[in-house]
């Protein structure tokens, strides 16, 4: 098992390096020379030369990359052109927000989607199955921004139950933080819940046909035990992989949803950065998001093996 984990981590490293190269090149591919901007209106050749030396612009590209990578590994992602603040600091401000939104959306999606999928498979062909499928299809079809606006109108404006926008850190005021994040999580989680429901349903339907489920019934196990224990444990395996991909995507932030609820997360940050041509910030966010995605998938792979003894055989 330890060897498998080590292997998977070692395989993740080249992927991360590729991501870093891509992110680094992003900056080099952009038109315009940042040194000329820095040199000011005079464009004094000596100043330009000095700046080039200072920023190691005269070094070969590979050396520039290595210097940059060294900085990144030390946690230095550069300075935001717009705000003048270190990018690392900006990201550390936004990361908890995005993380909280991602976790809450994922919890919502799993709590709704997985049981609905199981129920729909067990009661296949009945009213409940059709109802669950109808709701899932609706959940997939409804655009996030529309759902968000409707929720604000109904829950905040008309009923006054939850704040319409804003953000509060859970460390400062957990209740308020939960309240502000609840609607955005539901908006983001709805489509995910629908997808999870569909996948759980088909996975369960397959497993319920399996010979070992018949064996479990032949043992005299109660139907509840057969479904929860024998069938669900097997149906869960593909769901884990799917959930990991979903969670990884949530880490990139949700532009529209964050905009609607004015949540200061990654989505809003990256849009602002792109509009302001704040490339250091774009780079930083892309790098952190991609790394998060790779790490989540790595964890999912490890969990998959822990839950699936057949995989352990080939380690």
């Amino acid at each position: 098992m330890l060897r498998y984990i080590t292997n998977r981590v070692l395989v993740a490293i080249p992927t991360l390096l590729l991501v870093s190269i891509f992110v680094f090149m992003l900056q080099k591919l952009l038109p315009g020379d940042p040194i000329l901007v820095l040199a000011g209106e005079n464009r004094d050749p000596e100043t330009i030369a000095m700046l080039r030396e200072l920023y190691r612009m005269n070094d070969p590209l590979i050396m520039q990359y290595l210097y940059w990578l060294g900085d990144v590994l030390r946690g230095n992602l550069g300075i935001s052109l717009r705000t003048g603040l270190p990018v690392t600091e900006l990201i550390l401000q936004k990361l908890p927000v995005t993380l909280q939104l991602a976790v809450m959306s994922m919890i919502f999606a799993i709590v709704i989607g997985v049981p609905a999928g199981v129920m729909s498979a067990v009661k296949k062909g009945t009213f409940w199955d059709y109802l669950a499928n109808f709701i899932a299809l609706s959940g997939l079809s409804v655009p996030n921004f529309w759902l968000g606006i409707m929720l604000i109108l109904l829950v905040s404006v008309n009923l006054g139950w939850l704040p319409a926008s804003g953000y509060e850190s859970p460390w400062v005021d957990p209740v308020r933080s939960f309240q502000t994040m609840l609607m955005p999580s539901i908006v983001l989680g709805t489509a995910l819940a629908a997808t999870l429901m569909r996948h759980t349903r088909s996975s369960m339907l397959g497993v319920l046909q399996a010979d070992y489920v018949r064996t479990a019934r032949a043992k005299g196990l109660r139907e509840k035990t057969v479904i929860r224990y024998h069938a669900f444990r097997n149906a869960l395996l593909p769901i884990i992989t799917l959930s990991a991909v979903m969670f990884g995507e949530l880490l990139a932030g949700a532009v529209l949803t964050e905009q609607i609820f004015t949540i200061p997360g990654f989505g809003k940050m990256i849009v602002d950065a792109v509009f302001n041509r704040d490339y250091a910030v774009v780079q930083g966010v892309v790098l952190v998001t991609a790394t998060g995605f790779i790490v989540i998938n790595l964890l999912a792979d490890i969990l998959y093996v822990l839950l699936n003894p057949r995989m352990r055989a080939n380690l």
Partner: protein
Amino acid sequence: MTSEDVIPTLELREVSIRFRSQPVDLIDRVSLSIRPGRTLALVGESGCGKSVTSLATMGLLPRKAATVTHGQVLFRGENLIDKTTTQMEALRGNRMAMIFQEPMTSLNPVFTIGDQVAEAVRRHRNCTKAEARARALEMFELVRMPAAAKRLDDYPHQLSGGMRQRVMIAMALANDPELLIADEPTTALDVTIQAQILELMRDLLKETGAAMLMITHDLGVVAEIADDVAVMYAGRVVESGPVDAIFNDPQHPYTLGLMGSMPALAGRVQGASRLMTIPGSVPVPEAMPPGCRFATRCPFVSSECDAARPSEREVVPGHRVACIKAPLETHFAQGAA
């Protein structure tokens, strides 16, 4: 063992089963009887209803898709058709158990085999986890699992097909059932392993005194293990009786054909000097012949065969056949022509 007053372990009385969306009863008035300690082989081609009959007995047919439309399934005299789901769950894996054809897929891949056997014990006995595990080990030793103690924590994928079938047998017998239903338990196994598993089952049945319903299409297996035989064709029992009577004096044209199709047994069937085949195929439910269901393929067929379902006649005590032409000897001259 011949006394008539012994309550059979399992008795099917004219059981009919219909699948939704089908025009006729797939299983049509099937009657079987197995006394304690005896093994009945239910023989027939694929699709003749052997497995459906066994699953119905266990109460494992999906209720929505199939219904028992007629008859009684009596287990030690109690009609199982009247039982509730909860009552059937309490019987299954306890007083009646089943092993299946596919050992490769019949065990849950994500649990250890020890846990899966112990689970059957814990479900039906009031015992601790440790006691259930001890019972699982005891069962593994009983089914002659090599290095049984080490195997408890193995997962199914770590075992060969023969070993997995031993686990299935251990699981089925863990609660000392009175009835064991084995649905083609050796079909998926290598020939050498088949012989081992059959021998094991025979020994275990002798030890425990359980009755067995063995479903098979393999007459070699029947000769090896059965006391009595019931031959099924297209959802009906066409011939039944003690194994010797069926092998030495088959009376139904279908049984005769079945025996003629078996290379090793072909020599024992009168008048069959070379390997016989049964022409045609089993009729589909939509085109069931009105009288005898074998009429479309029978070499002895005549117009009376389509008139009505042939009633059972007893050629010798205990040997029953559902054919109006029985005894067949009188027709051999015409049939061979």
